């Protein structure tokens, strides 16, 4: 066991997969000599060489497209987006080329696009977005968003070994803020499986990414008031774990859907529809969303704080829902 940060766990996962499988290689901007804007790939150029750690021009479309071409030729490329905000520059390659290729004519497209997303670090509108739903709405892609160091390592390995394009959302707020004991032996976290982070009985909070920690904070707070929150960490958004979501909703009968992404068209809306369709009879109150408002992510600390969901907002929503 080794105590690793979320960021170190991702690096270790990448590192081990590159050692295990010579078809795995990484490409992106400033990832080689510089080790990446956040240093996720630090040391990898020295270890694996220029053929497998490729510094590219600033060309997201070319980077993603090149990864697709390499994947078709039997490789398993891992692309780094310097910020997930910039993934928009490679959008056509992802949603029209990579996502649809297997359905259109049958080839495997084993590739991963990973990078930092999320707010809370005063990054402003273009270094803070949670834009995962662009891709959750694209059949053919898989989308994952780990909340813990253990899951980050296990999911990056699962993503690399998957034969489909996987979009891997790292949360930059978590990079160096959380640490965890990581087992020495090889393991993967399967794509499509959620986990109950904290069992509870009164209200389930279903969430993912950094908001898992917000939900756990709120649960700790409310426990003192005698209110028991369950916290479900989705881990995968596409495909998502319908079974675990419905089981938790049925068990608690009251549901809060929490995410850092903006409200309209967010994951919460999708889950609310699922629960309303399949667990309506088990509900004892309205399905409640706690999300960011429908705005870009603002820069100034008071604005960003207002924008982001936090434990206080979750607790307020839970207290209100408990009255039903």
């Amino acid at each position: 066991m080794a105590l690793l940060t979320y960021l170190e766990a991702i690096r270790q996962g990448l590192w081990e997969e590159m050692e295990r499988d010579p078809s795995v290689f990484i490409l992106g901007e400033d990832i080689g000599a510089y080790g990446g804007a956040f240093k996720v790939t630090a040391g990898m150029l020295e270890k694996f060489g220029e053929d497998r750690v490729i510094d590219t021009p600033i060309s997201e479309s070319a980077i993603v497209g090149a990864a697709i071409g390499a994947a078709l030729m039997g490789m398993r490329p891992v692309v780094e987006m310097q910020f997930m905000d910039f993934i928009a520059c490679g959008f056509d390659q992802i949603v029209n080329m990579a996502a649809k290729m297997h359905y259109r004519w049958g080839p495997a497209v084993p590739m991963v696009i990973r990078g930092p997303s999320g707010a809370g670090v005063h990054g402003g509108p273009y270094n803070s977005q949670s834009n995962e739903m662009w891709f959750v709405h694209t059949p053919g892609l898989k989308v994952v968003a780990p909340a813990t160091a253990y899951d980050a390592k296990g999911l990056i390995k699962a993503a690399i070994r998957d034969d489909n394009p996987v979009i891997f959302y790292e949360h930059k707020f978590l990079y160096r803020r959380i640490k965890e004991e990581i087992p020495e032996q090889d393991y993967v976290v399967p794509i499509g499986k959620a986990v109950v982070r904290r069992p509870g009985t009164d209200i389930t909070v279903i969430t993912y990414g950094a908001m898992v920690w917000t939900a756990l904070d709120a649960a700790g707070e409310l426990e003192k008031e005698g209110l028991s929150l369950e916290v479900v960490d989705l881990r995968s958004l596409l495909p998502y774990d319908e079974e675990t979501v419905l089981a938790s909703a049925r068990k608690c009968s009251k549901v809060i859907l929490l995410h850092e992404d903006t409200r309209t068209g967010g994951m919460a809306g999708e889950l609310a529809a699922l629960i309303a369709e399949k667990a309506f009879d088990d509900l004892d109150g309205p399905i409640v969303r706690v999300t960011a408002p429908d705005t870009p992510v603002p820069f100034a600390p008071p604005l960003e704080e207002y924008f982001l969901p936090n434990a206080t907002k979750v607790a307020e929503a839970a207290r209100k829902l408990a009255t039903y």
Partner: protein
Amino acid sequence: MKNTTVAKESKSITKPDAPTLRRMLYYLKLTRESELRIEQVLYRQGKIVGGVYVGRGQEAIGVGAALTMRAGDVTFPCHRDFSVFLIRGFSLADMLANWLARGDSPTRGRENTLHIGDVRLGIIPIISPLGATLPVACGAALVLKRRGKGNVALVHFGEGTTSLGDVHEAMNFAAVMKLPVIFICNNNQFAYSTPVDKQFAVKSLTVRGPAYGMPGKSVDGTDVLAVYDAVERASARARAGKGPSFLECVTLRMAGHSAHDAAEYVPEKLKQAWAKKDPIQRLEKVLLSRKIMTKQQIEELGKQVSQEIDRAIADAEARPLPRSEEAVAGVYCEPDCWWRKPPSGVPVPTSVATDNGPRTTDD
């Protein structure tokens, strides 16, 4: 196929020998006639639905380029490069079945026209936002370069596509990384209805090559020998590790953008001028003057091609349409892959892609 090495040139550059010249004519005729049947018979009969795009007038580009390809090379044809698919090994019946939306066709009814691919044959198809294959070709070339066997990736696109950002990104990317890619611009002078002077402000697109740090050349796209030679030279350079090239092949689209388009925006004089440069007639003259084929043999070839197409159409039309519920199958590549099972309970057509990884082919 044996090609003779030209003594004066680099050893890797070959000139087409007599059998290759006869193959050129065969593929030109097969392409022209197949597209005429698609556009003017099957489409008008209502048997082909959706859009119909043909490459009349620009067949020499696909034929000339694809015939230079060697085992392990990869090509990214565009939507008017019908011949490339045939030359790389797709059966005409499979291709026509795809046009006819059949269940046992290369895309099993998921895709139309020439959106057909097969990694084993080294063919990666376009998506409708054209230009997107150029970055993908760079990725294929990245792998080819690392393999070190002197293989190249060819990618075709129109002059209209050169206005897209992907073209800039890919050409720069390929040049920076010295990738073995040949960027082949099929300049047919009209992007749908938009003429070249509304597409770009440079006099010749060849300047785009040096602008990125690679050679830029222009050839007559109706001269299959010129295209063959230019692609062969660019490929020889790429195979030797010297990086990408940009090649413009100028022609005129002798058809509408699609079957519903009468192309009235193309000046009549221009049409007449380019009609005189028909790629098939040009090659026939060469074959006759070099005494490689007689008039009678050329006529016989025309009949053979026509009969071959009759048989392929009959084969394709006899195949069933896909079953409706198959619409939701095969979205993801999972261990129990839907694409590995035969479609609609019939055997998989020989040219369907089932494996990831290029097949070694030998022209």
